[in-house]
């Protein structure tokens, strides 16, 4: 995996001044970033730093109290997942956001179902066969070997589920893909598949936003790294020439498990 020079094109996604307060906890206090096409931007930070909240606001899964997200220069409707999806964004959430009772195929095409051609399709009839076949092709293309795509996702092991969520996101994204700790539950082989997938996605000119605690891998794959602390982006580092302990030092302000950043 080569460390690319940061692309010079204009940013695909910009997030500006996102704020979010839960009761007394200021989870985000004015976080901003931008990603360019074909760039892997990693977000690192201690537990509770606000990483998941940040990307949830970007994806429209959480409505920020303040701030703006733009894709290709157009502002997204805050808190609207549809708006982000329509703009070409797809995500893997930390808790995966799958429907456990539905099968692998059904989850991959959830909300982007294929309709039968012709009248039946216009009546809303699904094309199950096409979806099944495309899912197989997708899995095959990624090198993932799940034997039965019709098993409900709840019967898969944690790692298998995470792979399904990654496959869904990369197959959907046309501009930005957001990955919140996509390898947390994965073994060596599956982690490799996911990292290869990220690389392939970047090659397709898609912007990648990656959250991970696995710093060695982050340093290996990311073009840029932003460090979050206490709900805001503390600093940005260039992975070239940076070591894991450098990053750890940046991540650790004081008492970082302390999330009592009380409102005013």
């Amino acid at each position: 995996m080569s460390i690319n020079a940061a692309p010079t094109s204009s940013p695909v996604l910009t997030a500006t001044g996102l704020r979010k307060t839960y009761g007394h906890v200021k989870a985000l206090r004015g976080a901003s970033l931008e990603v360019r096409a074909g760039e892997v931007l990693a977000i690192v930070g201690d537990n509770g730093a606000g990483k998941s909240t940040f990307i949830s606001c970007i994806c429209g899964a959480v409505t920020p109290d303040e701030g703006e997200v733009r894709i290709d220069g157009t502002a997204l409707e805050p808190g609207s997942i549809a708006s982000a999806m329509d703009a070409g964004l797809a995500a893997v959430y930390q808790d995966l956001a799958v429907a456990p009772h539905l099968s692998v195929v059904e989850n991959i095409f959830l909300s982007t179902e294929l309709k039968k051609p012709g009248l039946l399709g216009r009546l809303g009839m699904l094309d199950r066969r096409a979806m099944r076949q495309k899912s197989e092709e997708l899995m095959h293309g990624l090198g993932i070997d799940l034997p039965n795509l019709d098993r409900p996702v709840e019967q898969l092991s944690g790692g298998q589920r995470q792979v399904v969520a990654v496959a869904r996101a990369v197959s959907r994204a046309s501009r930005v893909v957001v990955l919140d700790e996509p390898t947390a539950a994965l073994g060596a082989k599956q982690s490799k598949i996911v990292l290869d997938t990220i690389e392939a996605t970047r090659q397709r000119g898609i912007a990648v936003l990656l959250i991970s605690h696995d710093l060695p891998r982050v340093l290996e794959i990311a073009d840029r790294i932003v460090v979050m602390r206490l709900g805001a982006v503390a600093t940005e580092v260039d992975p070239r020439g940076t070591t894991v302990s450098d990053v750890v030092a940046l991540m650790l302000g004081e008492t970082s498990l302390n999330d009592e950043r009380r409102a005013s």
Partner: protein
Amino acid sequence: MTTTAPAKNQTRHPAVSAATFTGISTTWYVVAAVVTLIIAFTIAGPEARFVSLTNLQAIGRNSAGLMLLGVGLAFVLGAGHIDLSVAANLVLSSVVSAKTVLAVSGGSAAAAAGEYANGGLAIAAGLAAGIVTGCLVGMFNGLLVTRLRINSFVVTLGTMGIATGLAQVVTGGANVPYLPPVLQSAIGMRAVLGVPVPLLIAVLVGLVGAAVLAWTAFGRHTLAVGSSASGARRAGVRVELTTTGVFVISGLMAGIAGFLDITRFGTTAIAGHETSMLAALSAVIIGGTSLFGGRASISGAMVATFIPTVLLAGFVMVGVGSFYQNIAIGLVLITAVWIDGIRRGQLAPR
């Protein structure tokens, strides 16, 4: 879609999702249970009269309303919600429907004198009025659940009181009398090829419902929302729309059932249907729909609605006192769900 390498089709298993599969198999199990009950009552009852055409027709007629409610509830439960207002909605819809029929067929003064006009039009208007009322109540439920984000148990418990009260206000507390007899002769008491028309309607509507659940995006989204609302939302499902949709469907079914009710009785039954909601809920659960969402079987619910009707008819025929009927129906409910659970392996060792 990213589709690399058109890999050879390596389907090792038929393209039927596990959810559908369980749904179907529970349906067959329920069919077997109903058939067993029918055989048992035929043997135990006098002269095999249980399987006489008139008795089976009566059972069919009596199951039609429950079946419609069950179809609606299967959607609602599948989406992880509950609708306690179905029976009250049925009553309200039947009342509005009856008033409309009277108005269209020439007003209640003429009706009291036995004069009726516009038979066919009155029927159509009555059906439409029932459907609109039912859907409005359903929509009200759906909007409260999605916009105000109140738990559906609370919302529909409230709507249950509201609909009951409205039905009483509309009628002044007395059943609507003097409905045109054509309602009963053309629909409620009619049979086509031996099949009672109300049952026919319920089955047809139910089959459409089953198709919607199994074969359309809406149906799939319904189960996704029931399986994990937050997951479905973040996967792009419009959860609010889907949720409102299932409540409207439930209301629609109550509306049709309300109309069928007046075609059966030739009047309204504003004091009746107090047990219908729980009976329909039981049927839906026996039929293989999960109370917690994510898994629903319309066909199972439809077949299971025969269970209370068959039990009641059978016990009366066999001569089991009516007090024991409550006990027996309770035991059958528990046993059926228990056996189904074992069968599906859900109650198997942890």
